[in-house]
């Protein structure tokens, strides 16, 4: 981003987090925060603990030490579905969609938490549910329109090219109308054109839907262009935290990426 944006409210705060699997220390003393409305990137070389960090945020892993404060409420233990209820949605590094289902149905699954009617009325498409489904469908259509995927609405997701599958996955995450959206390598394996499209959708999601975004990414060019602030991890340790320009000039970061001459 060419101009620096200012944010005033902290949405999520990570304090002194330690996570280890047996003897392997995945995260050691990580501290950073995510401001409401910003695009926050978590970067680092392979095995730096980026995905672990995301998994901690969304309640999939439980850190041995430290706290996560989300919307002012500190917690140590949370289940992924609780994270979802609280407005955290995510996409995955290796696409996790229902391959045999259409784009429309896949995005519809993202509405699950918003559905209020009981199993019985859903099964018979009856009563309140009929109206409710119409509302959900409307929301899903807005997302389809937003992501410009009208032409693949009825196409089974398994038949789509990779770049489009990624877009559908983003659509499903957006269907939950999240406050915080976690993107795990949204650009991995994409060609230049697909990356440009995805970047545009990430910016528009942030800009127009007001969603706070935390993303993990390998492609430095993309990260530096997209994000407001960047956290750098290496071997589970936090190397730097700051604006893209500050991080780019940080010696520790340069060493981690390019190696150090002994």
């Amino acid at each position, binding site marked *: 981003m060419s101009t620096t944006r200012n944010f005033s409210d902290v949405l999520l705060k990570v304090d002194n987090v330690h996570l280890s699997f047996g003897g392997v220390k995945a995260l050691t003393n990580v501290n950073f925060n995510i401001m409401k409305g910003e695009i926050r990137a978590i970067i680092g070389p392979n095995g730096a603990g980026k995905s672990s960090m995301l998994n901690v945020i969304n309640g999939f892993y439980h850190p041995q030490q430290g706290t996560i404060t989300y919307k002012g409420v500190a917690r140590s233990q949370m289940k992924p579905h609780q994270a979802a209820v609280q407005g955290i949605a995510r996409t995955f590094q290796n696409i996790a969609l229902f391959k045999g289902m259409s784009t429309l149905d896949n995005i519809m699954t993202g509405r699950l938490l918003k559905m209020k009617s009981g199993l019985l009325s859903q099964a018979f498409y009856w009563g309140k549910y009929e109206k409710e489904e119409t509302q959900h469908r409307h929301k899903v259509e807005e997302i*389809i329109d937003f992501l410009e995927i*009208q*032409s693949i609405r009825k196409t089974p997701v398994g038949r789509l090219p990779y770049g489009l599958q990624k877009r559908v996955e983003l659509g499903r995450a957006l269907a939950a109308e999240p406050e915080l959206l976690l993107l795990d390598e949204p650009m991995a394996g994409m060609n230049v054109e697909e990356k440009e499209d995805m970047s545009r959708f990430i910016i528009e999601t942030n800009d*127009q839907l007001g969603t706070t975004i935390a993303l993990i990414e390998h492609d430095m060019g993309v990260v530096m262009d997209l994000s407001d602030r960047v956290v750098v991890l290496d071997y589970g340790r936090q190397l730097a935290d700051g604006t893209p320009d500050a991080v780019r000039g940080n010696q520790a970061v340069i060493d981690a990426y390019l190696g150090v001459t002994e």
Partner: protein
Amino acid sequence: MTAIDSLDTFPKILLERSKSSAKKPAMREKDLGIWQTWTWQEAFQEIKAFACGLSAMGLSPGDKLIIVGDNRPRLYWAMSATQCVGGIPVPTYQDAVAQEMAYVVDHSDAIVAVVEDQEQVDKLLEIQQSCPQLKTIIYDDARGMDDYDLPHVMSFESVQEKGRELLSQNADFFETTIDQGKGADEAIMLYTSGTTGKPKGVMLTYDNMVITARNGCKLENLTENEETLAYLPMAWVGDHLFSYAQSYIAGFCVSCPESPATVPHDLREIGPTYYFAPPRVFENLLTSVTIRMQDAAPVKQKVFKYFMDVAKNIGVRILEDKPVSLKERLLYKLGDILVYGPLKNTLGMSRVRIAYTAGEAIGPEIFEFYRSLGINIKQIYGQTEASIFVTVQPDDQVRSDTVGIAAPDVEITIADNGEVLYRSPGVFKSYYKNEESTKSTKNDEGWVYTGDAGFFTDDGHLRIIDRAKDVGKFSNGKLFAPKYIENKLKFFPHIREAVCFGNSRDTCTAFINIDMEAVGVWAEKQNIPYASYQELAAKEQVYQLVQDSIEQVNRDLTDDSMLSHSQIFRFLILHKELDADDGELTRTRKVRRPFIAERYGVLIDALYDGKSQCFIETEVSFEDGRTGAISADLHIQDVKTYSLEEGKTAA
């Protein structure tokens, strides 16, 4: 004779439709997955508010308004609204890069632009720096426009809001303004795609469009019950006539697709009865059907092949009301249930009553394929300067190699040099700010030089062979008609584009562009690996495939003693696809011969000096406006040619 038949401008017709057809659908668009409909009354209200808004902002009679975008109801309404207040709409090709569009904006003196979305707003803001006469930019889709805090960039609604304010003070303003319009007024300005030189702004009057549209409606018995899908560029005269003029005259509903990518789905859902597509679209559809059938189960393939042969034999005769035996009728009926019906449904053509094609020659096999399915596809021949119609094929006299007989009220004559001339009520008023071209195109008696060479066949049908100026001579003085040969080449599914050379030379040679999709599938079946167009195009086996096709064309050319010397001696496959963004094709995908001859001069020389390899580096521009270069070492291949006798025995 209804009230509509006596009205002379589209605004007057609109006013009448808003009363007599108030509750009938006028326009449809798919939005958030649901088809939204506007009746004539509702469309009228939208247009009225917008027109008054334009007027309130200072658009006066004679002012030009640029329209840029895909086919959207609001853009059609903007067109209508401009006409209502006496302005002249100028629709432009929405995929044109800023530089090309700047020429049109500048040349047309447009003061307002109505555009589809943020992308086009950005383009016009860039253009505005060099075209300061452009005062206002109005956008349809508000997405992404929040941060544009510019006083001269505004939304469609805000203009309508201004219009409603004006109406609250002066309720009769709109109707009075409409009344002042006359048939002789300029109704629209359409820029020709510019096969040669800069685009020219063709000024058409209400009389031109209204009379031509009315004649067309009468000829084909178009009623208010027709369904059409408006998906071709709004800047093209055909779309203006079919989706705008004729919709007003006949009162039928025009549907706009959800997005350019959804057109095939939308066609299927709407099921148009009146359909228009350039030959390229029909070709692409057939190619995709063929490719999908190749992947079908063997039984299905057999059934498909059997019934397509049946259709070839019987279908056209049924369509043209020629004698067909009972047994044949039953067999065709069975085919209809098993193959033709489902196929037509997939293509979105189940209900097509009239399908027009024009612009380029259409391959005989393609033409026959659709006609044998019972789809009444007909060729027309036309020009922007004629409000499109010059000739049209009557229902029972459809041929693939002619373009039909003169359309109603059109006179045609052939000049001594073979050039086709016509005169009709649709003939344009003038080229905008180009007196010289107007004079050289339209003579004092109103005859228009088409620039096409052609002749009448024995049964009175016009056959176009080439552009008059492209028809050249070999060094031995014999006729060279490049397009005629190129079209023969392009009828092969794996050849997408061909450019032939031979003027003032002793032999004919060709550049070929392969069809990536068709050749790609073929290559996969042959286990030929490839990663890009360039790599595929350079494969020896692909060269062989193209060579076989060219030899077939050479054999065919021996059928006609006038053309047998045009056989192709040598060819090469280009390392990149010819592209409008690089200036090699026009926006309607016509080859720009002089430009290509200059750009690839090295390759042409190599075709004639006997070399078998030639190195070339070419600059290409990407969709986002950046440029890059690609280079290649191209192979040049010799082809077998045939004497008249050989051709006969081989055929």
